[in-house]
């Protein structure tokens, strides 16, 4: 009797405890969409004058003239997308290659120092990257990389124009260095979780080391690697300080990667502090909203693309 009561009481305490815990976690999870929603509402409210004034033309106009009060965000979106794409183009092979080395090939005494260095890379503040960009990367691009590119691929419009050292390409390079740690750290972790049996099975079938990695490890870890790339992309799309220091800050759409460009986040950071007129301020907020939209669209597109690719044939299915 007494024992039963005690058990009942205990289980009811536990039930209450569980419920409180559940509610607490649910509230935390609800916080994220709430914050997102609140941000969206605040952005739309602050951008309203510009939305009413420019509407959709804001996204297709290339004029950014605070004096005349005419604003269009197209060159900034172009700069954001192209610099991020360049960053991924460089950092994805580099990052995944490093991750494969760390998880499959590296002797253990080498693994932890390299991982430590990679994590250190992620911890460097972006303004420091920017300074490194101005003092090291920009001169290197101007003096070494640009002549080399012009000498070999100079016939392409991608590499036309004077060698300034500053511009889209430099921004892409610096972004790639900044996002590579995300790809390496997450991908390595994911590949380490691939069961040993998976590798041994492939080897037992007579696969070489390369085949094992390509057909047994990477497919298994694919969703994690894709997640790592998304993280890197998100960081690249939003990065402000380091980019603005090396991209040249000219709102234009040029075929050449050597030409200066501009990104959405950079123009907001640059001009917000001194913007006084209402329309100007709201155009900058509208640009922020545009960046949010672009980020959402890019992420959705990437997810769709990945789910298509993931359905493709593979030697070993999970």
């Amino acid at each position: 009797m007494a024992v039963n009561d005690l058990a009942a009481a205990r289980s009811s305490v536990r039930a209450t405890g569980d419920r409180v815990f559940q509610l607490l976690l649910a509230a935390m999870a609800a916080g994220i969409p709430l914050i997102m929603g609140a941000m969206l509402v605040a952005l739309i409210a602050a951008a309203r004058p510009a939305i009413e004034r420019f509407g959709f033309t804001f996204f297709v106009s290339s004029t950014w003239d605070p004096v005349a009060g005419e604003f269009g965000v197209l060159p900034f979106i172009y700069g954001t997308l192209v610099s991020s794409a360049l960053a991924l183009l460089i950092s994805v092979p580099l990052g995944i290659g490093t991750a494969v080395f760390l998880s499959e090939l590296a002797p253990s005494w080498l693994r932890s120092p390299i991982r430590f260095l990679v994590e250190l890379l992620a911890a460097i503040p972006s303004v420091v990257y920017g300074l490194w960009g101005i003092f090291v990367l920009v001169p290197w691009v101007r003096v070494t990389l640009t002549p080399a590119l012009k000498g070999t691929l100079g016939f392409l419009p991608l590499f036309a124009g004077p060698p300034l050292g500053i511009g889209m390409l430099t921004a892409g390079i610096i972004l790639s260095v900044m996002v590579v740690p995300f790809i390496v750290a997450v991908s390595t972790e994911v590949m380490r979780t691939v069961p040993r049996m998976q590798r041994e099975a492939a080897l037992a079938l007579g696969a070489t080391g390369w085949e094992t990695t390509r057909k047994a490890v990477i497919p298994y870890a694919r969703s994690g690697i894709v997640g790592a790339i998304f993280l890197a992309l998100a960081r690249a799309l939003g990065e402000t300080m380091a980019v603005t220091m090396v991209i040249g800050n000219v709102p234009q759409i040029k075929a050449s990667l050597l030409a200066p460009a501009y990104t959405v986040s950079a123009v907001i950071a640059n001009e917000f502090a001194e913007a006084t007129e209402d329309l100007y301020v709201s155009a900058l907020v509208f640009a922020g909203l545009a960046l949010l939209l672009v980020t959402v669209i890019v992420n959705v597109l990437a997810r769709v693309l990945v789910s298509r690719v993931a359905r493709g044939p593979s030697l070993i299915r999970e």
Partner: protein
Amino acid sequence: MINGMWRVGCILLAIAVFAGAAAAQTVTLNGAGATFPFPLYSKWSQVYADERGVQINYQSIGSGGGIRQFMAKTVDFGASDGPMTDEQIAQAGGQVLHIPMVAGAVVPVYNVTGVGQGLNFAPDVLADIFLGRITKWNDPRLARLNPRANLPAADIVVVHRSDGSGTTAIWVNYLSKVSPMWKARVGEGTSVNWPTGLGGRGNEGVAGLVRQTPNTLGYIELAYALTNKMTFGNVRNKAGQFVRPSLSSTTKAMDGALRSIPDDFRVFFTNPDGKDAYPVAGFTWILINAEQTDSVKGKALVEFLWWAIHDGQKYAPTLLYAPLPKSLVTKVERTLKSVTYRGQAILQ
């Protein structure tokens, strides 16, 4: 043990209460705005706190932010390198006074191999370079001004500020005054739609680009150019003289512009009269309400500004700001005497 902790706690509490009471007695003035005069204002706030016991908190958040906060009345004074527009003053409610504190000059800096300090620039040439109409360093119009300089046949890489700034406002105001085409095509403001060139963030960004990139021409604050030993040029003034930018030629510019400076001081005094006046310079202002709403703070504020335009000026040159000329100080005194509390002048 517990007893001891109690005692310490009581003492701490007593100290806190006492300090709170003491703090309540000192007047604190809060201001926000331009970054350009920040070193000077923080020096002033230090000296003034020692001398008069008035605390001045100044946040250097940029002129635009300063104007916004001043309009929202979250600060006792604003600070800006550009005057408020009529619209903004109307929104702020009540009369707003612009009190000039010191002036700064904006200078053309360049990096051309084999060319040293003191290249001569004429106003129309500067405007056409920044419009992208003069594109070579050895352009005949530039070469004629500098017969001795060994100008290369290289493209001029123009560098401008990418962030909104008072420095840009002064520079483009000058270009608008000397070039009708600039005025029509680009106009003036803290950020403009640049016809050509690269953008660098902040004075340090422009300086970095100019230093790193051959054949560049940009504009930065004189103080920054001096402390960083940049190569900068002379600009031909209204009187036809090529003037080396300096603190004294900036002060002379204020003197030369005196007659054309309106009573509310809301003007960029670029391109002034005067033989030795350096033509690209501007004030930095403190913004206050003509009618103060707090008798204690109002009095402290006006007294501080009075001190700033007199005793405070001696700190300007060492920090590389151009002090106000005597002639102008008299004019500013009149404005400060017009500040009121409940309709009564605060300064007698």
